[in-house]
């Protein structure tokens, strides 16, 4: 691995972790699309600040862009509060306007400089290692790391300090307000954090992929845990893994790093959605199948109990009869009988079925429930 490769992975991993942390609260507050709005709408702020400073590395760019991000949230919420426009439509109206203003500004006035629409959408992670942060001629590492590193720390500190307040206002904003915790202020603080993170990550991975890194890892973690702290840790971890896996995928297929990172975040989600231990599709299907089988066993034992020691016993308590009477397919009847025999509830003598003592007790119990 060359130093440049290591730098890229480091930048990608730090960016992914920084995005995933506030993303957890976006997902839980059901405002995931705010990240989409913010990550696009910061563009005009970035461009205008660039016109003023004429320096792409100026910290003023981050401040101006983050302010535009918060302005976006304010505009969207003001528009949806009028109740003439629903919130999703308000998001769809506000951010494309701001984003397109940014695009026009770049195309019209900044075509000669190193600020172009491709970089805005997809970032330029591959070149990030060549942009060094130097003080007095000493190389202190890639500049992007000096942007995303502090942003990651900022996010960690904010979440650690206001963890309790964020949790309460996300779960129950009414109680948070009643207890005097200013959920509105917390909301804007969180949105400011999302904006700052989006601006920083924008440079590395572009605006579309910021959304992938903010939303996909938390949505994945949400399927794996039911504790908030675990969800935060898992989200950051999944983000970092997606970033590194994405880098090597891009390396292998010689393609866009940022694109591969977002794809990997999507793959991680898809795999988890299918195979998560409790909430995954497979686990759910298994649970349903086993519920169906257990219920079939119950029906079988209850049916046998019902006809035990009656004149119909000889006719009712036979395997072929189940198919007709309980409307089971021959396969399913065999499956249910096998399961009941295996569990020791039923004895089978050729076609003739009879209950065991535990089977009788279980059937009686089942009928009481």
């Amino acid at each position, binding site marked *: 691995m060359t130093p440049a490769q290591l730098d890229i992975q480091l930048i990608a991993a730090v960016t992914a972790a920084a995005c995933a942390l506030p993303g957890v609260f976006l997902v839980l507050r059901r405002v995931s699309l705010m990240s989409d709005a913010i990550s696009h709408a910061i563009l005009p702020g970035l461009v205008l600040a660039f016109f003023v400073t004429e320096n792409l590395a100026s910290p003023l760019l981050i401040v101006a862009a983050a302010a535009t991000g918060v302005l976006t949230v304010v505009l969207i919420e003001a528009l949806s509060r009028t109740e003439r426009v629903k919130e999703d439509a308000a998001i769809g109206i506000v951010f494309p306007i701001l984003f397109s203003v940014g695009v026009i500004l770049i195309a019209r006035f900044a075509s000669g400089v190193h600020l172009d629409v491709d970089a805005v959408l997809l970032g330029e992670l591959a070149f990030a290692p060549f942009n060094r942060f130097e003080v007095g001629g000493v190389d202190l590492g890639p500049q992007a790391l000096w942007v995303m590193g502090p942003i990651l720390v900022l996010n960690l500190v904010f979440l650690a300090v206001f963890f*309790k307040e964020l949790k309460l206002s996300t*779960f*129950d904003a009414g109680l948070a*307000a009643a207890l005097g915790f200013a959920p509105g202020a917390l909301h804007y603080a969180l949105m400011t954090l999302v904006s700052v993170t989006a601006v920083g990550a924008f440079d590395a991975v572009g605006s579309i992929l910021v959304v992938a890194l903010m939303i996909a890892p938390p949505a994945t973690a949400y399927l794996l845990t039911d504790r*908030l702290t675990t969800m935060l840790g898992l989200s950051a971890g999944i983000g970092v893994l997606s970033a590194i896996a994405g880098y090597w995928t891009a390396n292998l297929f010689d393609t866009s790093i940022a694109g591969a990172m977002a794809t990997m975040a999507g793959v991680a989600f898809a795999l988890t959605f299918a195979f998560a231990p409790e909430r995954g599709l497979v686990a759910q299907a298994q649970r349903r199948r086993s519920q169906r089988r257990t219920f079939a066993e119950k029906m079988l034992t209850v049916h046998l109990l019902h006809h035990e020691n009656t004149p119909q016993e000889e006719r009712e308590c036979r395997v072929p009869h189940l198919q007709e009477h309980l409307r089971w397919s021959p396969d399913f009847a065999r499956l249910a009988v096998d399961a009941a025999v295996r569990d020791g509830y039923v004895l089978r003598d050729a076609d003739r079925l009879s209950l065991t003592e535990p089977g009788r007790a279980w059937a009686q119990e089942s009928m009481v429930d």
Partner: protein
Amino acid sequence: MPNAIDVTDLTVAYRDTPVLWDIDLAVPEGVLMAIVGPNGAGKTTLIKAMLGLVDVAAGQTLIYGEPYARQRSLVAYVPQRGSVDWDFPTSVLDVVMMGLYGRLGWVKRPGKKERAAALEALDKVGMQDLADRQISQLSGGQQQRVFLARALVQDAQVYFMDEPFQGVDATTERAIVTLLQELRQAGKTLVVVHHDLQTVPEYFDWVLLLNVRRLAVGPVAEVFTEENLRLTYGGRIPFVQAASVNEP
């Protein structure tokens, strides 16, 4: 001795439509009061307005003679069960501890003492065994008990509860009523949005009849009359048998 709750001239409007119209209300300490009225009468809005959760067009609320903002520690609030996301990744114990966040203030985290207090409150609602349970696995009645425990742990003087019996089974309803009555006997004041007119005389000692305006307020024996109910519900009294209503 000031009243537990004093509301004067409280008006809440949605644009130019009044939701609550000039409400005056004086609730003495130690009563268990039901708020009843038809759908859209403003019952929930009244509670929220008293707690400063909605903008009021006019009027004020005093808790023991002071504005609510200065008396937060004296007040516990149980919102409607449906107002929160029960898929939120947290445990029963954690939700109950949220009741103590107000006392802890900003930044400070709950510790051993808070855990113990929350477990004790869960015990009171018969849910100690479920302390570590993820909240999405609770039944409606259990969710309501968790909310109740979260209010109990605040050890407040005044309790505002928005439909604590909504969607709970008969056993849970009994258990909750017993708890509310114990709180009242301990000198607490409780204001409860309630839907079932039938049980008002049995559960409560005070009642507020509300339909945008305050139609009547006072001891159940005095104001829970057929005439007042007719005023409140516009002639049709739902779900109520004449026998359970006091004749004027």
